[in-house]
């Protein structure tokens, strides 16, 4: 790490001069495996679950085949922890350092991050310990079954939603409040919900965050690097994965049309949906070559409205079917409804999903989808 000390200080000073601010950032040299581990688990000391194992395995394989490697990782904590990869070239790591300061600035200054839990690193550790204790007390198998179910419904969190009525339409909050769970089970659900909210925030600001970090990176490095190095960077920037590229292009557009001051405002108050809604234009859609692809018809549509709607839908519901708890049912009944009735759900997944919900709800669970009502109870799945 010593060899980077000077360049870290220089980049940090440049960043501050550009009006950026951040909590302390700790850089840490690590190997590809450690980065794959953190990337697959989301946090370095989170509880161990088989689900991350699959992702971890895949990332490690990809890295070993040089198909794809994660260059950098930053945690939204105070202080921020950033992981550099030992195998990166010096230049790559310089890029990463600049990029990381972009993220750190975003974590500190973006409105939506104000309420985020900066102590997540420690909490994840505590969660992991709690889960281990429960495993001792109630048996690993029982705990895993509950965890699997909790993680299955975890995608229904919404880190932005503060209105209790709206929140209770979302399955995980509803279950936490009303499911007839034992105390330790409810506690598990709560832990998973907290972690899921932490990730939900990151996910909902993925494009703007990566876009901003890439923008910062390119702005700062123009002053740090030689012309030749800079040219090779520009190539690399174009080959970044889509969220980076889309976000970066949007920030560039703001800079060109409204100036740097506006750029800073956007990074402070916007999240993905608003950024896309306000800044994405027909011509950017064309240039980025993003489109709505219909696999049945094999057609592409560059229609701005369609692309926008699709992007926003992705952000709001994570690309998963949107299911809400139907209000007005009391007591033991849990009725879910699929909100886009015209889209069909895979019946196999419905069975698996309802089974998982049933593990937590204990009583019959109903789902309105595909023009019928599916019921899961003690006897299994039935539909009418």
């Amino acid at each position, binding site marked *: 790490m010593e060899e980077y000390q000077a360049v870290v200080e220089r980049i940090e000073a440049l960043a501050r001069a550009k009006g950026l601010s951040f909590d302390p950032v700790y850089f840490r040299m690590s190997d590809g495996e450690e980065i794959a581990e953190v990337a697959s688990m989301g946090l370095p000391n989170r509880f161990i679950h088989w689900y991350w194992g699959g992702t971890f395995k895949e990332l490690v394989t990809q890295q070993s085949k040089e198909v794809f490697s994660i260059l950098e990782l930053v945690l939204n904590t105070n202080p921020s922890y950033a992981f550099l990869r030992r195998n990166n070239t010096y230049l790559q790591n310089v890029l990463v350092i600049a990029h990381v300061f972009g993220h750190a600035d975003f974590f500190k200054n973006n409105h939506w991050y104000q309420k985020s839990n900066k102590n997540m690193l420690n909490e994840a550790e505590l969660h992991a310990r709690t889960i281990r204790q429960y495993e001792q007390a109630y048996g690993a198998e029982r705990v895993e079954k509950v965890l699997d179910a909790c993680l299955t419904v975890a995608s229904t969190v919404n880190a932005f939603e503060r209105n209790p009525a709206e929140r209770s339409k979302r399955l995980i909050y509803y279950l936490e409040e009303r499911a007839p769970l034992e105390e330790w089970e409810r506690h598990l659900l709560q832990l998973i919900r907290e972690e899921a909210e932490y990730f939900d925030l990151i996910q909902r600001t993925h494009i703007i965050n990566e876009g901003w970090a890439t923008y910062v990176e390119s702005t700062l490095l123009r002053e740090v690097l030689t012309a030749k190095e800079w040219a090779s960077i520009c190539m690399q920037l174009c080959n970044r994965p889509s969220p980076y590229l889309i976000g970066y292009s949007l920030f560039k557009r703001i800079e060109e049309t409204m100036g740097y001051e506006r750029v800073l405002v956007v990074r402070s108050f916007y999240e993905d949906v608003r950024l896309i809604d306000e800044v994405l234009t027909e011509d950017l859609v064309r240039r980025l*070559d993003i*489109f709505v692809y219909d696999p049945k018809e094999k057609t592409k549509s560059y229609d701005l409205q369609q692309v926008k709607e699709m992007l926003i839908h992705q952000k709001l519901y994570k690309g998963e079917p949107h299911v809400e708890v139907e209000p007005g049912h009391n007591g033991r009944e849990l009725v879910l409804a699929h909100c886009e009735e015209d889209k069909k759900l895979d019946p196999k997944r419905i069975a698996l999903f309802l089974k998982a919900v049933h593990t937590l709800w204990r009583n019959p669970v109903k789902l309105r989808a595909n023009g019928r009502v599916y019921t899961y109870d003690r006897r299994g799945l039935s539909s009418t």
Partner: protein
Amino acid sequence: MEDPAEKGMRIHRGRLAQYKHDQLLREYLKQNLNELIQQKELVVNGKVKTQIATLDLPTLKYGEELPVLAQGPGGQGRSKGGKVSDEEIVVLGGILGGDHHGKELRVELDFDEFVRLAQEVLLEEMELPTFHEPTRSGEVETEDIPELDDLDRIGLRPDLNLEETMIHSLLRNVRERGVLDYDVDLRYDGWYFVEDPASYQNHRSLEVYVLDISGSMRGEYLSLVRKTIFVLWYYLEKRYPTNLRRYVVFQDVAEEKTREEFFCVESSGGTHISSGFEKAMELLEGVTEYDKFLFMFTDGETSSSDFDLARRRYEEALEKFDLVCYGHVNPGGRGIGGFSEVVQEMARKRPNATFANLMDLETIKAALTEFLAFLRGERGGSRPWRSTRRSSRGSRH
């Protein structure tokens, strides 16, 4: 600051999670092995595809192909011209919005890993013995320079020795007799050189797998064959870690295939068993492997015009191979007829012919006992089928 992680002292949570994941995967495979193994195209690009939903979290998914957000190569900074094919389109779902932890899991296994897992499952189900990795007992590692108590026969050193012998011979003859000639008799002075290196006894064995892929060989048929081969591999690999394996498939005509292709078959066409034997014998040309095994898998329904030819070829194969194992693939458990009947008859008479009726795991187990009888025999020092030939081998002087 002392960081224990710097010294490699950390909990490898990733690997622990992977272990848990793989345990579940194993369970899944155990339950679904039969279905997986029947896939017509078992290996694609070295991978076995699985249709795993259970290793994913059971979240809801759409049941139809819906329009998706995607990105073409233009946005990735690659060439803008030309038509965009399906492959160049990157679907943005997982990257942009889906689960934080990345894309949807559809588990693909390395073929080797799949085979190992399948072996594990099969051996357990059939209650067959497992081997540990060969122990290296008796081998003592030492830092001392080994005592030179033997002469190399092949390699650089004997070559140099021979060269030196010949140069000295040349010089001596020039000096003493005034002729520019050697007086080296290669039979004595270069004894190590005379022997054709190709005739060295090679302790590898050759295994030729021949598979009938005519129209009837699908589903349960393939499953039986593949299970048998996997378990065979398990034992042969332990015995002959370096052996050579070649693969032939046939219907009307026979073709040699790679290992991967062998497990990707399109069953079609008629059956000419003779062609399978012919191809297998062709493969023997120039082969110096010590033992030659032939494993033939078919349902025995060779076309009637081929019947006599197939019988002749089979008899020839018995001459040329040390062991000809014939697996009659018979998932329905019907009576044995057709060409298989001939083989069954022959197996009673000829020591190096074996016949197995593959109907289920139980019969695969019986087949292995048949096929691998030599492993036991060898341990006892006798190799029952060896009488057929062996005398022609070896040109040691």
